[in-house]
């Protein structure tokens, strides 16, 4: 029966659908990333330059997205905010991935006491809400990027640990790994040819998800005022700054909200479910 359902044409069709979704996500992310990278350079306005006479200008030729209450150019601030959010989130997700995956593989490989200890550690971290952990760290050094980054990484690694521990267990128990061991291959080979290829699609998905999670966490911290501090531009911070002017200048708050949505949507589309289940 499986032979019927695994016909190459079917697999191909599923794969193509999946690819379309991924391409859409990738295009979205690429445009946000392009805006974040090139924006600060293209928009010549200084994000911190204040001109109180230009307070709350509507979008126009001089300021495409208008100005905030201090007369600062919103487009320029948005580009800087996007660059910071995206950069910090990706960095945190990547630094969480490396130890998370390694510990997960070690846990399912060694089993026994090593596994129990690692699982207990992960559960302990998991018992504290992620946002609270980031808050704790950022209260050590308020407004500092490194504190936020450390807090984010420490809350994100657990997911990588759990997923790679669960995903590597059937691989390690399978005939393919047994055969490779019998044929005389060592741990490095098993990691390179068996474990990492099996984990790669799951980890790609997880990377996108956890980066999205980090972007949202940063914005949430910005909103409650314990994340990045003014005058630095940050998405959550911008939202809270624009909130009082919601009545007179609704386009202001729309800009960071839309950017945040596009960013997270792009990451979710990129993650999706992996069509390559076989």
């Amino acid at each position, binding site marked *: *029966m*499986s*032979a*019927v*359902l*695994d*016909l*190459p*044409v*079917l697999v191909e*069709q599923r794969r193509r659908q999946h690819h379309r979704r991924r391409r859409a996500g990738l295009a979205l992310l690429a445009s946000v990333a392009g805006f974040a990278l090139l924006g600060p350079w293209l928009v010549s306005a200084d994000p911190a330059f204040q001109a109180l006479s230009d307070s709350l200008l509507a979008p126009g030729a001089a300021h495409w997205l208008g100005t905030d209450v201090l007369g600062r150019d919103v487009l320029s601030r948005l580009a800087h905010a996007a660059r910071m959010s995206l950069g910090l989130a990706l960095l945190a997700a990547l630094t969480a991935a490396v130890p998370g995956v390694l510990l997960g593989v070690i846990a399912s490989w060694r089993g026994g006491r090593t596994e129990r200890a690692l699982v207990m550690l992960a559960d302990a971290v998991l018992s504290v809400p992620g946002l609270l952990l980031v808050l704790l760290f950022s209260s050590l050094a308020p407004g500092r990027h490194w504190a936020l980054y450390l807090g984010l990484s420490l809350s994100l690694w657990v997911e990588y640990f759990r997923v790679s521990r669960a995903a590597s267990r059937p691989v390690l128990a*399978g*005939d*393919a790994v*047994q*055969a*490779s061991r*019998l*044929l*005389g*291959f060592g741990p490095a*080979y098993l990691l390179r*040819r*068996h474990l990492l*290829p*099996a984990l790669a699609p799951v980890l790609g998905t997880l990377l996108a998800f956890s980066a999205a999670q980090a972007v949202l966490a940063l914005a949430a911290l910005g909103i409650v005022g314990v994340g990045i501090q003014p005058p630095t531009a940050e998405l959550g911070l911008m939202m809270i700054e624009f909130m009082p002017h919601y009545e007179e200048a609704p386009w202001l708050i729309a800009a960071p909200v839309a950017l945040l949505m596009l960013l997270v949507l792009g990451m979710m589309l990129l993650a999706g479910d992996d069509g390559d289940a*076989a």
Partner: protein
Amino acid sequence: MSATGAPPLLAVEGLSVHIGRRALLRDVHFSLRPGEALTLLGESGAGKSLLAQAVMGNLPDVLRAGGSVLMEGRRSRADDHRARRALWGRGLALLPQEPALALDPLVRLQAQWRETHALVGGLGRAAAQAATLEGLRSAGLAQAAGHYPWQLSGGMAQRAAAGIATAGGARILLADEPTKGLDAAWRDRTVALLQSVRQAGGCVVVITHDLRVAEALGGQLMVLRGGEVVEQGAADAVLRDPAHAFTRALIAAEPSRWPRRSPPATGGLLLEAAGLGKVYGERLLFSGLDLRIHAGERLAVQGSSGAGKSTLGNVLIGLTPADTGTLRRADGLAPTAFQKLYQDPAGSFAPRVSLGTSLRDLARRHAFSWGGVEDRLGRLGLDPGLLARRPAEVSGGELQRIALARVLMTRPALLFADEPTSRLDPLTQQRGVVELLDGLDESGAALVLVTHDEGIAHSVGGKTLHLASDV
């Protein structure tokens, strides 16, 4: 058994399956009255399973079915899947090829069996329980009632799936290789189960590689090759006097007709086991087993399904520790001197890496020249183009040949082959076993062959070890 004159219970007219413009199955006709049976024979990939799926109405969307299917007096177009779906379970049942995938891994055997009696068969609580116990007992699974499917051996899962598939009381049963991996005794019990469906006024379509099933079942026989029917008629007539050359080749390749090979010269002692014992769960598999294996020796291990044949092999080559007894390898053997050939070759290769990459890694690891590998693959009749593919993209017969080439690269002293050909059709099977033995003759390695098939065990020309089972 058939009621002559009765209207057909299942009739298929002009059935075809296409993918795009390519025909996978062409112009199949048959008609079964209550009590009749049809056996489908043919090479792997001939379209036998596809035929069963098309009759079920369970083809994937990209496949286009043509022709019509008459079932319990209602005619429907072959591609009208919904028309037959209403009959699933109570009127029409399929025993799928992979029993392990058909059972729910998270539910104990007894519970899923009872569920089928109660929800599909419509029995009351007590009646369902009684029917379940009776089914478990007659399938020899009474002790395994509380097991999860992953705790069952391949043959046990096969019997469980057969019992559950028939629990709904369907009158039309499609069985896709119901005796795969079963020894003679259980094969006969499974055939009896199929016969009981016929006696109850149902009809049976059986896909098999085993001619003895076709013989025992009787009824009609259809031989498929490359999606076309090459021969069709009464089973005893076709088997006695096959008209088509392909049918003749298929019958000649039946394991009980294989010639016995002369035993090769044996050398020094490789492995000595004394008082080996192993318990699986609460079941004693074997105990007090003494065994000596010499270089070049051929040992066939037989025994009923679940008797611990594969476990014994794993213990001998050091993959599983024994519970009692001692095992001594001869001195001076390399750590990779004991190798294994798996029942499912696809599962024994790294799934996401091309076959060529896997073999090249191994050649480098064992300082084996790549030219030698290509030479061996060529002698096994393998196209070098196959190496660019991943394991799942190669047929079972070809992959088992590649697996053989792979283990021989390590210059093994002892090879444990665990039912290496049980998933293949007889023609491919015979070729596979001959290639395996040729390869071993050439390298001088000893063989421990686990097989449920007495014909194959006899043909390798060595000693046979029978494992008794307490089930």
